[in-house]
């Protein structure tokens, strides 16, 4: 058995070497790179699928790279360097460290490579040639407005738990958190800072690492601070599922509204089952597909993609998914959400 395991490991090694081996270049084939935060999150897995499909259709030789965990900056730097060395025409990147990645991306742009930030804007945003992303602030606003409308008059004395991503608070974390509070009608003060609000309705912020275990722990901790919590914002749906488990253990799952962002298939199913009240759905496949299209256009005739009107990036769209629509807040039903979910 041990030998079989060893054999399997060696086999896997051989396989990975085979995939690295250079392909025979076709006539107008160009190189492109997709660099994601991790291979763990289904969001990035789906993004990779979108990019791979587009590359096949547009005769692009796609190399994909991913950090080991969210926040693994070094691996991403190495990936960018490899892309420059390989003579790729374009890089699609979801940056783990949105500021620190800028210098190495500048080297890439200086070498004539089109750099497109996917999902996560760089800081500053114009450090990339274009940004194809979900409007995360809007995604937050939608669930904030929905929660406020659902509570009606009771929104004035709601008790809100904020389940964020990580202590380092990357931009997506800040945008969703602040968008939600803005939509709910909280004065958010500095839009770029989590936790500077002094609204009494906010019980507290805690981090979840975007997974079930973290979501549960964070919810337990905030419930220990105030057991009257009745609105829970979560950075993504796994965190929301964890928060629900904690509420269930406290026998509180009935009277609490949980809202989230992402629109992954298990998340939408959780909306259907009443675990999550509403979630803002984003579209990673579109992001990657359009990114590859843009690289093809850049290689063919040197055109760069343009931003959505009124925004400093290209908005790939977001929809609120709920079976309990609130007046004045546009939304789609769970069935439509299921047909467009990812992962």
């Amino acid at each position, binding site marked *: 058995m041990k030998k079989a395991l060893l054999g399997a490991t060696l086999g896997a090694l051989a396989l990975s070497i085979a995939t690295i081996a250079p392909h025979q270049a076709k006539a107008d084939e160009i190189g492109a790179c997709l660099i994601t935060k991790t291979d*763990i999150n289904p969001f990035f897995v789906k993004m990779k699928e979108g990019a791979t499909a587009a590359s096949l259709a547009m005769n692009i030789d796609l190399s994909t790279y991913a950090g080991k965990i969210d926040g693994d900056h070094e691996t991403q730097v190495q990936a960018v360097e490899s892309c420059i060395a390989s003579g790729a025409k374009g890089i699609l990147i979801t940056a783990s460290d949105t500021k620190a990645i800028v210098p190495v991306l500048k080297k890439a742009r200086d070498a004539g490579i089109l750099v497109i930030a996917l999902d996560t804007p760089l800081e500053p945003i114009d450090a990339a040639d274009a940004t194809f992303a979900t409007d995360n602030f809007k995604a937050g606003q939608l669930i904030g407005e929905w929660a406020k409308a659902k509570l009606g008059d009771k929104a004035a004395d709601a008790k809100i738990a904020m389940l964020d991503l990580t202590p380092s608070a990357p931009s997506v974390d800040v945008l969703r958190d602040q968008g939600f509070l803005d939509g709910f009608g909280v004065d958010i003060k500095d839009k770029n800072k989590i936790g500077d609000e002094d609204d009494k309705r906010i019980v507290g912020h805690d981090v979840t690492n975007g*997974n079930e275990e973290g979501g549960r722990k964070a919810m337990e901790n905030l419930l220990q*601070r105030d057991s009257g919590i009745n609105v829970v914002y979560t950075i993504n749906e796994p965190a929301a599922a*964890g928060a629900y488990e904690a509420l269930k253990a406290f026998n509180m799952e009935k009277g609490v509204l949980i809202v989230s962002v992402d629109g992954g298939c298990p998340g939408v199913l959780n909306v259907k089952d009443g675990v999550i009240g509403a979630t803002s759905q984003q579209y990673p496949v579109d992001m990657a597909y359009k990114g590859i299209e843009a690289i093809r256009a850049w290689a063919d005739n040197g055109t760069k993609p343009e931003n959505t009107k009124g925004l400093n990036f290209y908005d790939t769209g977001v929809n609120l998914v709920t079976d309990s629509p609130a007046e004045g807040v546009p939304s789609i039903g769970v069935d439509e959400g299921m047909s467009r979910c990812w*992962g």
Partner: protein
Amino acid sequence: MSDENRTPRKKQDFEETLGRSDTNVASFAPKQRTFLQSAQHLLHGNPTMVPVIVLIMSIIIFGALAGPKFFSPFNLSLILQQVSVIGILAAAQSLVILTAGIDLSVGAIMVLISVIMGQLAVSLGVPSPLAVLIGFGCGALAGGMNGFLVTRIKLPPFIVTLGSWNIFFALNLWLSGAQSIRSQTLDEVAPLLKFFGESIAIGGARVTYGSILMLAIFAVLWFLLNHTAWGRHVYALGDDKESAELSGIRTNRTLISVYILAGLVCAIGGWASIGRVGSVSPQSFQEANLQSITAVVIGGISLFGGRGSIAGPLIGALIVGVFNSGLRMVGVDVLWQLFAIGWLTIIAVAIDQWIRKVSS
């Protein structure tokens, strides 16, 4: 013979002074111990004392800072619940560290096994009890692979488990597609997998089966390590492998059994983690291996092997739990919690080094 018949003899010179000489039997010069030295000796004899003292003090301090809410049975049972999975991993980690090794793959084994159990029961429709048993088998196998590489191929444990950490993690992603299995699905298809999430209420406290499981695992390991020949062998080989071998212990066999047992404990932890998290989550517990090492080190088990009580890591895990809970209740930011745990770890190792000096 009577004294009267004897004529008193004149004492010789040396006899005159004889009475004044030291009458003590030969002995080592008595050493005056300072308070610190006595403490050092005491702790050397009872290495678990330090963590116990730290645990009691931290409970008192956080109780004073955070108010009565901290002391509530509910909160204390919640801390127990929150540390249960890391505690179980720390138990597995201790076994390996006692042999002067280290296991970086414990967390990866645990998550992999939870995914294997979940996929078997949910996607393939295997009956839950069988899925759990297969999971246990895979855990033992994963540990056995580590042990095989360490003992037969003679690779350092650090390197072996650094590699197997990545291998198990990759297998986890491959099997799960990086996708969680939802709590609701488990309720429908395989509620047994969530068994350790059930709880019993004792007064205001809510004790999960997972917390009880953790305590039971420590109790069993304590018995094995202290009251069986196998346990003596583990300590002996961790202290000095060569002398253990010379005294007739089959060190490789013992070492491989340690890794297999550690893998099995991780697998049990995998089952418990499904109950704790509520779903099968391939993305959770990514730092569990390091957290387990932290608990072991804070618990006073020496990284150099052969010394420390298995009760230590349990206390160590609880200390981390109390710190996190207490600091959160006081309203301290997450990054300062990391800061505090970091210092705690370094101080724990420094104290361990200091205690070790007693023998030299």
